């Protein structure tokens, strides 16, 4: 007769033998073993990230990642006497793989770029970032690519600002002794206003304001714990992602060298072969014109054909002579931009402002007249002159074919000219 199985810790075995089932013990041991292994894994990640953060990475500068932009302390560690800040917005994400983009132009050069920018990164973010980086900036130059779309009536969108906001950069800005209290208060007030859409973050900002601009009271324990957690998370996050990026970007560089017969690949290919020389901007401009012509395919707005087919064709009849509902003449962005220039002046940073045009053909089509555009350009120029900022003014290139990739982003020839301006500024 088969023995009955016991209810608690036995199970039926072969030949009627019982096997005590000590599942509870095994489970507990397994849990603590798993905990130990996970802790060891995390310690390994921390050690890897810490060691990596202390080394200068060639790929870091041109790596365009929003995770990178929020980590001002790590960015500071990557600065050296040859690093030039290049700050912008969505245009930095366009044509990254072409030889005309500044990232490609500066490949293998002595001077290195630190790119920061994506859509809706505007003056206020960049002011905070520069203030966070300034104490470690050996090379005191910064380039800001200003786009007309920043100066819509509402200024930067609150939701966009909040999603891009860096608490770490903000605290480092508050700590900067070279920035006046007046400028810190302006940045803080604007930040508090825009962070109304993120009450939790805003609550922490109020504590930092009290600590650095008020009574000096330290933040509460919850905020300190959060800060410590985020510091560790940011270190591991950035370094793991940078490691992954370095792997993929090294594979792309190999294929660039193989394509060196193509004249438009010269800069990167030369750099790969260790032949550093000044970029041949004349050849690049000629090549850019050819590439632009091929990519546009003869449309009346001289934009990329794929963009024309997927977007322009669908909306052009609707928006004809509609005019832009929000103009560029009145905007809180002007105050934010002035704050950037003022902050640079206080911290003795030498800025160069790149004024990019809009696509004149398209803006004429939608009824945004040239006088209104010129008003925007004039205001930006006037602010630059007020603070003695260098200007690379491309506002007169609205109708130059293949200068713009679409209605608002520079492309091909535009990138060559902007890259040359940045190069000359960096080499001075």
């Amino acid at each position, binding site marked *: 007769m088969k023995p009955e199985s016991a209810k608690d810790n036995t199970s039926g075995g072969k030949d009627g033998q019982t096997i005590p089932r000590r599942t509870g013990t095994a489970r507990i041991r397994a849990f603590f073993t798993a905990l130990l292994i996970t802790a060891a894994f995390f310690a390994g990640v921390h050690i890897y990230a810490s060691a990596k953060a202390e080394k200068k990475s060639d790929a870091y500068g041109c790596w365009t990642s929003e995770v990178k932009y929020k980590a001002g302390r790590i960015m500071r560690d990557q600065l050296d006497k040859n690093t030039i800040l290049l700050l912008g917005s969505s245009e930095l994400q366009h044509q990254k793989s072409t030889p005309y983009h500044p990232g490609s132009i500066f490949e293998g050069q002595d001077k290195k770029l630190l790119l920061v920018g994506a859509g809706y990164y505007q003056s206020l973010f960049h002011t905070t970032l520069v203030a966070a980086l300034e104490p470690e900036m050996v090379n005191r130059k910064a380039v800001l690519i200003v786009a007309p779309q920043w100066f819509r009536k509402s200024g930067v969108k609150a939701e966009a600002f909040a999603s891009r906001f860096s608490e770490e950069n903000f605290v480092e800005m508050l700590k900067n002794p070279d920035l006046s209290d007046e400028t810190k208060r302006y940045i803080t007030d604007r930040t508090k206003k825009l962070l109304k*859409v993120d009450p939790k973050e805003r609550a922490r900002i109020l504590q930092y304001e009290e600590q650095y601009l008020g009574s000096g009271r330290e933040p509460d324990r919850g905020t300190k714990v959060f800060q410590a957690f985020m510091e560790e998370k940011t270190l591991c996050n950035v370094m793991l992602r940078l490691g992954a990026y370095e792997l993929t970007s090294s594979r792309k560089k190999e294929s660039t060298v193989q394509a060196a017969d193509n004249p438009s690949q010269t800069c990167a290919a030369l750099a790969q072969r260790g032949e550093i020389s000044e970029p041949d901007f004349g050849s690049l401009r000629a090549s850019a014109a050819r590439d632009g012509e091929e990519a546009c395919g003869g449309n009346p707005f001289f934009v990329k054909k794929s963009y024309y087919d997927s977007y322009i064709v669908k909306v052009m009849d609707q928006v004809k002579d509609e005019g832009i509902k929000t103009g560029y003449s009145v905007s809180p962005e002007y105050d934010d931009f002035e704050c950037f220039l003022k902050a640079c002046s206080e911290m003795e940073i030498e800025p160069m402002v790149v004024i990019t045009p809009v696509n004149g053909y398209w803006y004429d089509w939608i009824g945004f007249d040239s006088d209104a555009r010129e008003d925007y350009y004039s205001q930006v120029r006037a602010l630059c002159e007020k603070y003695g900022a260098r200007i690379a003014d491309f506002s007169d290139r609205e109708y130059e074919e293949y200068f713009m990739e679409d209605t608002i982003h520079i492309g091909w020839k535009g990138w060559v000219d902007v890259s040359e301006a940045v190069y000359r500024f960096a080499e001075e």
Partner: protein
Amino acid sequence: MSVRQSTDLQKNNALPESAEAAQARKAHERREFRKWLLLFLAVLMVLCLYFILADLSTAPRFVYSQF
């Protein structure tokens, strides 16, 4: 002694288990341990990587558009 009596005595550790039974028991324990170890490890590693890599911002989601 009946098999049932033998089982009861084994249950109460009154009777030493045979070598085969001990081996079977240990093998069973190892299997159980490995199974739970893999399960807990998977959960903890996912949690660990989540906290490292996820965007934990409390800001509202913003969908980027060009205009």
